[in-house]
């Protein structure tokens, strides 16, 4: 560990002081001269034909005005994909409540909303498609020529034979709820053509991809579109999509020549930003009587809402769930079928843990049921099936190549720190006192830091897979770092500076990580899928290393020594074996721009590096939740929570813990509270934070005990991604714990009090 703030140091974050002092600059804080506010007129119908838009003397822009603007239509390379094209403003037909139909501008948001109220849209309602059953009915209503937007099938080994030969067959269907990321800051878009380029300030996770998409939609060259990412109040996957509002605001800015701004309100966020998860997962486990898995079959049907989203498409969630389903267990025969099905609900997209959360939920619930069938403890059935340490790297039946997997070690560790045997004893004595305690275990492996090969293999052609960083040393010896991947709260200003500090042996305060701006920063994929500490860090380390080599060459010239003989101390370079022959890093930097005579030094001290990581490096963990269920009220309380995790080497333990806790909180929310509800007419019901419940401080366990196991990855720096793990395993761990407490089968989330009471007394 570098105590000065390099890799491994638990240093407070560099971004904190300005955020704490109220000096953050979030999207809605931006004010430009002559700026107008936009308000959208949105569909109140889940499915309807637009007969007429009457603006009654107001200038309202509709699909007619935007006819030359491209659609939101992500591309895909492969079979089974049926494209959709969402118009930035609905044309002819609306397909979910909240779909933008028209936009108006006012001098303030108050005025714009007043004007929007005066726009009258005449609709002819069409039959809603509120659920999978309706969508898949042969004669049912269609949103698109076919409601099935994506279909895939895969088989490895011979599942049929495994099933025929297996003495135990365990069929189970797991239903996950529809969730939404609900970042505390909604989306906000400000667009302005400054005479040179269209400038778009948006809190996106994928600025390079948004630039490409906006350029494509508006027919502009890339250099004429500049995406700038302000401070961003959480993303969690939801902000990695191109949204109609971004396209419309960009078009307005080009057309009108004045700055325009739109700030999403909470209702818009809850009905018109992407939602997530809603899937039915049918699993068939084939096993020996001793609980050893023989084969696995799955059918995953996702209710993906009205359209494919850019860049990930509707395949993202169900395909991810299918690929991760066998998880950390030895499965020789595996087959899956995946369907993404359109309904008249908001489009679904990425949300922390995407695919994996539901895959892990289904598999871990099934493993608990298998344990019960075989008369085994849930921990023992897992130990029996986990891929042994000696088998890595391991080619799973899903086709994924696990570079590592520390579940065996993690499970042992989590049982040890939690005193699993002691907890079981406490559970028995609580039960005899009439209290329902439950223990829930969940293991997972997580693909992190995906590279281009994975996105190509999946068919996701819109995502390049690399990240990039530029490191520039200014003449005073301070360092500027520009990244292709913005932060939504993960703390890149600190962690990425720690990497540079480590390589260049500089104090952290000499390094500034700049806000992401596609005009000045390099091209990359963005911040999602636990990739920053692998793909992003790889680029930063490579760029910093090139600076190190250049600086050593300059120091060598200044000290009249060979660059190979230059060694580094904090802020100084010296000649090996002769520490008195040294030069300050600052003087090296100055020499790069104020060239000493003799021509031994070439000017400049900067480097840009791109990094396309190998397919994936795997994080893994075991989680253990202890819950108590109040059988009178149905309330579930999380009493204790334990995690043993392999995320490789840590850059900043404070931030790692923060990511873990935040993920667990979202997992607790998904397990116990969160549910985007649409009624039988596909009308959204959960449109405020009084209906869509996020976890509170009082919903968290008093503490989360965290242990790190495993070993560094073989990626640069030895890191593995860890932004999602908490959210991947917590729903499964909590669901298993509730099932354990109640002694009944839990097959759907969320487990709100009313759901728990129903489980206790299905007749009530």
């Amino acid at each position, binding site marked *: 560990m570098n105590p000065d703030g390099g890799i491994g140091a638990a240093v407070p974050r560099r971004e*904190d002081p300005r955020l704490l*002092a*109220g000096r953050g600059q979030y999207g809605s804080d931006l004010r430009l001269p002559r700026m107008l506010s936009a308000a959208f007129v949105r569909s109140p119908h889940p499915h309807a034909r637009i007969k007429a838009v009457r603006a009654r003397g107001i200038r309202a822009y509709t699909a007619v005005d935007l006819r030359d603007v491209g659609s939101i239509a992500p591309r895909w390379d492969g079979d089974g994909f049926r494209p959709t094209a969402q118009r930035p403003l609905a044309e002819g037909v609306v397909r979910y409540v909240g779909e933008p139909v028209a936009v108006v501008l006012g001098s303030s948001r108050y005025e714009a909303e007043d004007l929007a109220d005066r726009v009258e849209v005449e609709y002819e309602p069409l039959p809603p498609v509120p659920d999978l059953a309706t969508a898949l009915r042969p004669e049912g209503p269609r949103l698109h020529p076919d409601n099935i937007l994506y279909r895939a099938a895969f088989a490895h080994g011979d599942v049929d034979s495994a099933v025929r030969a297996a003495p135990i067959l365990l069929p189970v269907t797991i239903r996950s709820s529809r969730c939404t990321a609900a970042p*505390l800051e909604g989306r906000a878009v400000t667009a302005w053509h400054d005479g040179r380029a269209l400038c778009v300030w948006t809190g996106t996770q994928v600025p390079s991809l948004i630039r490409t998409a906006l350029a494509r939609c508006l027919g502009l060259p890339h250099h004429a579109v500049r995406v700038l990412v302000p401070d961003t109040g959480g993303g969690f996957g939801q902000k990695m999509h191109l949204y109609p509002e971004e396209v419309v605001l960009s078009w307005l800015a080009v057309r009108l020549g004045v700055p325009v701004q739109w700030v999403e309100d909470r209702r818009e966020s809850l009905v018109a930003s992407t939602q997530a998860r809603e899937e039915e997962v049918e699993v068939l486990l084939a096993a020996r009587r001793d609980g050893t898995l023989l084969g696995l079959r799955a059918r995953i049907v996702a209710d993906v809402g009205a359209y494919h989203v850019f860049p990930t498409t509707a395949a993202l969630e169900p395909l991810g769930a299918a690929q991760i389903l066998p998880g950390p267990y030895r499965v020789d025969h595996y087959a899956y079928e995946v369907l993404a099905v359109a309904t008249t609900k908001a489009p679904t997209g990425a949300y922390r843990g995407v695919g994996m959360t539901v895959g892990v939920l289904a598999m871990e619930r099934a493993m608990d049921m298998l344990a019960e069938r075989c008369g085994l403890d849930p921990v023992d059935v897992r130990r029996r099936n986990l891929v042994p340490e000696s088998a890595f790297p391991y080619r799973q039946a899903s086709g994924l190549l696990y570079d590592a997997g520390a579940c065996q070690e993690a499970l042992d560790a989590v049982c040890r720190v939690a005193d699993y045997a002691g907890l079981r004893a406490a559970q028995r004595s609580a039960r005899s006192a009439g209290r329902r305690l439950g223990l829930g275990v969940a293991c997972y492996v997580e693909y992190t830091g995906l590279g281009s090969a994975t996105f190509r293999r999946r068919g996701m052609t819109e995502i390049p897979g690399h990240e990039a960083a530029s490191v520039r040393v200014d003449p005073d010896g301070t360092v500027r770092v520009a990244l292709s991947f913005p932060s939504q709260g*993960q703390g890149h200003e600190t962690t990425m500076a720690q990497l540079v500090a480590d390589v260049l042996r500089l104090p952290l305060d000499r390094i500034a990580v700049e806000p992401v701006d596609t005009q000045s920063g390099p091209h990359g994929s963005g911040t999602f899928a636990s990739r920053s500490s692998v793909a992003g860090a790889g680029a930063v380390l490579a760029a910093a290393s090139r600076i190190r080599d250049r600086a050593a060459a300059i120091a060598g010239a200044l000290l009249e020594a060979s660059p190979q003989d230059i060694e580094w101390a904090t802020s100084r370079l010296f000649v090996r074996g002769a520490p008195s022959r040294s030069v300050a890093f600052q003087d090296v930097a100055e020499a790069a721009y104020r060239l000493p005579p003799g021509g031994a030094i070439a000017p400049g001290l900067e480097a840009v590096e791109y990094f396309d990581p190998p397919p994936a490096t795997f994080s893994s963990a075991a989680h253990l939740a202890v819950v108590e269920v109040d059988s009178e009220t149905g309330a579930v309380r999380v009493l204790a929570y334990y995690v043993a995790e392999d995320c490789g080497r840590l850059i900043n333990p404070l931030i790692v813990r*923060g990511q873990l806790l935040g993920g667990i909180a979202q997992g607790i929310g998904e397990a116990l509270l969160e549910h985007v509800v649409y009624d039988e007419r596909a009308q959204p019901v959960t449109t405020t934070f009084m209906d869509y419940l996020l976890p509170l401080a009082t919903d968290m366990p008093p503490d989360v005990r965290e242990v790190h196991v495993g070993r560094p990855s073989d990626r640069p720096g030895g890191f593995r991604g860890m932004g999602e793990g908490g959210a991947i395993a917590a729903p499964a761990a909590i669901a298993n714990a509730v099932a354990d407490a109640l002694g009944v089968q839990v097959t759907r989330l969320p487990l709100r009090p009313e759901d728990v009471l129903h489980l206790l007394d299905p007749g009530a």
Partner: protein
Amino acid sequence: MSTRERRIRITVNGQPREIEVETRKTLADALREDLGLTGTHLGCEHGVCGACTVLLDGRPARSCLLLAVQADGHEVQTVESLGTPEDLHPIQRAFTEHHALQCGFCTPGILMSTLWFLRETPRPSREEIREMLSGHLCRCTGYLQILDAIEAASRSLAESGT
């Protein structure tokens, strides 16, 4: 459409201010737009999330649920009244030391509630802190590091006697 305007006087962070606002304008929007105090954030605009919490005459209030005209003649304290980035208030310092913020969007409201809470309850139990914090939504942190920070802040404030 109501566009009636009224001139109001508010003492904001100790400074007397006079602004002309539409009667329908929320206090939050007046602070952000008319007074340039964008540290107060709007997370839900219906009084649930607590991000917009300010102190009104020394007590926490959701500035999204108040009209600016209701604050006429009153004192308002926002996050900008605490420390500066170079000289943080002890509560802010505890927040950074304990990594009690990630995206930072909900943080100003939590800081203002904490400022009031620690005046009222200088030696709070962990349970009391949890109860107070349950009036705020944070989507990033999972709250535990915020509990740690507020606990630490209560100790450092008690020691320094402020």
